[in-house]
């Protein structure tokens, strides 16, 4: 029985992550256009785009290899599966024992690896440029994220997301310098990884400083739909990850009833709306950064997470 509910909740989680991701993007775009005085497209627009793209025929370059065709599926599966690992509304998931932070980083890294390969596959200059920049960002963002994981793991003595959330819910650890530094660092990493302003501008095509869009320039039709959906799910995943580790309140734990699960879903929705609004506010108030400043930005994230880990040893009661 308990296993059955865990499987059911896991399926719900998979579907919720997929269904909500384009809505989150749509919400961010809507808030952003309201903030700059435009009326803005409905938050449903990304969903409509994806459905339309799914119906369209993909156009492939002559020299595209099988890897180019396989990549969208691999990327989408890896990211969707990673999203299934992050407890969004309940910690009672069938995959909870495998929901390890390091495994999560591994999934995201493999998705990025295939995306970068696909960017270079056709041989256009834009694709290669995007891939090389993506790897530059990744080389700095991944260690920062790992340092965040280390400080969280030292503090809670586990790398399992479900257990971290359960521990915070049952014994609050209070405000910790290390957690605050880890949160800031993780936010910086999330901004860089999801190609948001100030690192990348998600709203442009054919701009010299673009990163994510440059890699997917050659994709069309259902391939593009999958890649777009994967990037939407990735943003939702990061919001879910930050909410799970730093703000897990409202999440259902094993043994609680149906109502707790519903409440968990409701609070997750609220967290997404809040995160989307904050992100939109942040993006409209800041300008895009020069490519040469990425290193400083992400190096800053790395150093902050390092400081967080150092401060664990000064604070009381590790």
């Amino acid at each position, binding site marked *: 029985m308990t296993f059955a509910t865990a499987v059911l909740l896991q399926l719900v989680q998979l579907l919720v992550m997929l269904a909500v991701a384009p809505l989150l993007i749509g919400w961010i775009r809507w808030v952003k256009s309201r903030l700059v005085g435009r009326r803005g497209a409905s938050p449903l627009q990304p969903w409509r785009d994806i459905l339309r793209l799914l119906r369209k025929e993909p156009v492939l370059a002559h020299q595209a290899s099988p890897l180019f065709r396989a990549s969208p599926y691999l990327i989408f599966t890896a990211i969707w599966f990673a999203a299934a690992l992050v407890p969004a509304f309940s910690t009672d998931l069938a995959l909870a024992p495998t929901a390890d932070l390091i495994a999560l980083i591994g999934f995201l890294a493999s998705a990025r690896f295939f995306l970068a390969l696909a960017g270079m596959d056709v041989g256009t200059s834009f694709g290669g440029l995007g891939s090389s920049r993506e790897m530059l960002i990744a080389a700095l963002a991944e260690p920062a994220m790992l340092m965040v994981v280390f400080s969280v793991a030292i503090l809670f003595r586990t790398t399992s997301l479900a257990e971290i959330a359960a521990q915070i819910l049952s014994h609050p650890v*209070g*405000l910790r*310098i290390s957690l605050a530094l880890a949160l800031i660092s993780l936010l910086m990493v999330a901004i860089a990884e999801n190609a948001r302003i100030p690192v990348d501008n998600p709203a442009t095509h054919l701009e010299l400083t673009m990163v994510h869009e440059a890699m997917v320039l050659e994709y069309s039709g259902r391939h593009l739909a999958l890649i777009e959906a994967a990037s939407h799910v990735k943003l939702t995943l990061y919001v879910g990850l930050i909410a799970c580790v730093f703000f897990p309140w409202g999440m259902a734990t094993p043994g609680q009833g149906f109502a707790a699960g519903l409440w968990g879903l409701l609070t997750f929705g609220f967290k997404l709306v809040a995160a989307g609004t904050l992100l939109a506010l942040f993006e409209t108030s800041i300008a895009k950064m020069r490519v040469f400043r990425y290193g400083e930005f992400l190096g800053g994230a790395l150093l*902050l997470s390092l400081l967080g880990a150092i401060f664990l040893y000064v604070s009381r009661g590790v």
Partner: protein
Amino acid sequence: MSDFAYDASHLLGAIVLLMSFALLYQNRLFSLLHVYSAQALTLAAAAAWKGYAHDETHLYVTAGLTLILKAIIIPIALHRIVVKLDIHRAVEPAMSIGATMIAGVSLVTLSILLVLPVTAEASALTREDMALSLSVVLLGLLMMISRRNAVSQVVGFMSIENGLILAAVGVAGMPLIVEMSVAFSVMVAFIIFGIFLFDIRERFDSLDIQKIEQYRGEQE
């Protein structure tokens, strides 16, 4: 002392340190001044919170002094100096920002390593406060040596003083008179710096400290 009081003072101290890093990261003079004023504001909040948590009224005076002098008057005055002198608005770091940040983290580690054995018997809060304030002082020094522009060096000096106040707030029983004298000496130093800036500018047409070095008489 309750858990929440500990957590809050702990977090405010950390924000002061974070602001020191933000100072190192800035590459515009005006945002440097804004960050400096934010640091002073956090420091004032930390002092006021300590005063509230420990029931020590003289800490409110410290908080008030910090708030008025360092969060409002000094940044506004520096702002006016920058506008008046029409200085080039970009900070010119003597070493790259990334290298400065790495040096900064090593300094924080160094101060933790220094403070931990010395304060082995003290409470966790004192230990942490000492580590934080020593780091802020060292980061201020780093800022002074890694910037060419005289205005950012002044800001570095002021942030050293913020670290001293943070230490003074953390150690229970620091007499008010010491804090007052520190605050006023900084005020005097600030005035002298202001005059110096005008003087340097008038004489050498620049605030770049490197250009002055050739007049030191050491070089042939």
